[in-house]
């Protein structure tokens, strides 16, 4: 198991009138090499949860284990945080806003140097990472501020990839991108997964979840509402629901309610649904 979370509780601004329980007793495990998604509505606590994974937030109570690293609620007891952050890296939402160096290559190398890689080696690894996100030599010496939004995002992601973490956490990696930009980023993430990395993604986009992920965790009001494979998600998460159900699955659910022999767990795209309803026409006649 790559990640184990036990009874995690987190309160924002404790002991003030604005105190807010963001996570309320979350227990879950994420296996090695998973491609996992955290979903839920805004304010359900999913971003708060993933920020615990590399000790950006320290639990109010409960504990986490990320491979050999352990995070507990006492701040001083947490050691080797830097090693943890090299092992598990987090790409923030709208990561293009964290760029600051004068050239693209320097910005990508920045993280590496923080983790103790020598300058020349860091620049070399930075070039590799930039090439892997589809940005060639032309971009290396450019200022990040003269790039387009989509390119800046790829630079930011390269900055994390260069660190070469074993676990990669992405918070809304496709937010604000158009269809093509989103596809580019997701195929990159999928490549990382095929290369043996554990991927954890926070997202609103159910299409992405169904297409890429094999495990899904649903949060609702700071509590875990579902954990398991994507197949059974729409069977188990009901109408009151912690998530927005995409129209494809709304249709599938409606067909099931009508008594149609439809297997929702086998539907990943419109084409899957078509395959199942293909023969029905004849039955009606």
């Amino acid at each position, binding site marked *: 198991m790559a990640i184990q979370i036990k009874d995690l509780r987190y309160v924002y601004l404790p002991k*003030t*009138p*604005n105190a807010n329980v963001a996570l309320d007793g979350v227990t879950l495990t994420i296996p090695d090499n998973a491609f996992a998604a955290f979903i839920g509505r805004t304010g359900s606590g999913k971003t708060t949860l993933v*920020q615990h994974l590399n000790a950006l937030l320290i639990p109010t109570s409960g504990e986490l284990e990320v491979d050999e690293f352990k995070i507990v609620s006492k701040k001083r007891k947490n050691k080797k945080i830097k090693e943890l*952050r090299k092992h598990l890296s*987090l790409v923030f939402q709208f990561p293009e806003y964290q760029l*600051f160096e004068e050239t693209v290559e320097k910005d990508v190398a*920045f993280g590496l140097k923080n983790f103790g890689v020598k300058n020349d080696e860091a620049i070399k690894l930075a070039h590799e990472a930039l090439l892997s996100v589809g940005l060639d030599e032309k971009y290396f010496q450019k200022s990040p501020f003269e790039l387009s939004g989509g390119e800046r995002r790829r630079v930011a992601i390269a900055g994390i990839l260069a660190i070469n973490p074993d676990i990669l956490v992405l918070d809304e990696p496709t937010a604000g991108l158009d269809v093509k930009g989103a596809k580019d980023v997701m195929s990159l993430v999928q490549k990382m997964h095929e290369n043996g990395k554990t991927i954890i993604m926070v997202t609103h986009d159910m299409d992405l979840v169904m297409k890429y992920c094999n495990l899904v965790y649903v949060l609702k009001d700071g509590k875990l509402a579902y954990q398991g494979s994507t197949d059974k998600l729409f069977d188990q998460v009901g109408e009151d629901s912690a998530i927005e159900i995409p129209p494809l699955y709304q249709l599938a659910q409606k067909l099931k309610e009508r008594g149609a022999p439809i297997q929702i767990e086998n539907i990943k795209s419109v084409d899957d649904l078509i395959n199942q309803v293909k023969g029905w026409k004849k039955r009606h006649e």
Partner: protein
Amino acid sequence: MNNVTFGRYTPYNTFTHKLDPRNKLFILILLIVAIFFQFHVWSTTLLLSGAFLILFILMMLISRVSFLNIFKSLKSMWFLIIFLLVIYVFIPNKAYEGTPICYQFNEHYAIYWASFYQCGYIILRIILLFCLTMVLTSTTKPMDLTYAFEWYMTPLKLIRFPVHETAMTLSIALRFIPTLLDETERIMKAQESRGVDFGRGGLGKKFKAIISLIIPLFVSAIQRSEELSDAMEARGYDPRAKRTKYRKLTFGWRDAIAILFAGAIFGGVLYLFILDRTGTQIELFQWIFKVNPGF
């Protein structure tokens, strides 16, 4: 940002919260002046300061201001207190000559009891000031304070001071403080994920860490301000044009009570002060002592 709690507005609904911000600001100034009166007889000054302290504690209780905050802010002031002690106690001051001596080093240099008293009094006044401002800021929304400032500054329009623009700038700045604090926290976390350590490291590392925070913050703040000015323009804002006002500050019965009470206190202290300055020795301590021999 969890650590910025000092004097922050707390959304309760107490008597003080309901007062007109203009009135609160005025009362604050009255009381500040009142605590700065100093009398010839030091026991009188001390007694009055004590009375003020009790009064302010009551005000804090009424307004539900957290005492913990006061202690926290005092904790961060220990350096100032030591500094004051050194200045007042160890630097020779002719004014103390002839008063009781605490310790005589040699014939030219001595430490006087009066200097301790003086220093203690300064610290007490700082605490009093702290309590007062805390009551104001934690019961008044920052935006209401700008409305109050704007109201008081209105006469300055006569000398062409840009009162409206100043108030608008101030209120937008206040509106965006929480947004920018969130942003700061987010960028810090993002850079921490890239191995930046904001707490530790040598000077060079620290410098780099700060740069990695400041530049993205500036870039985004500039972008925000551009978008904001577009949005304001799109909704017909023209700084030179006349505008009507939605917010109206109202002076209610609570305000009348508060200002009468504060006025009475101020008047009383001012009366004693005038007596003091016109030659009457105000022995407040003994007056009370005579009235109440058991004190």
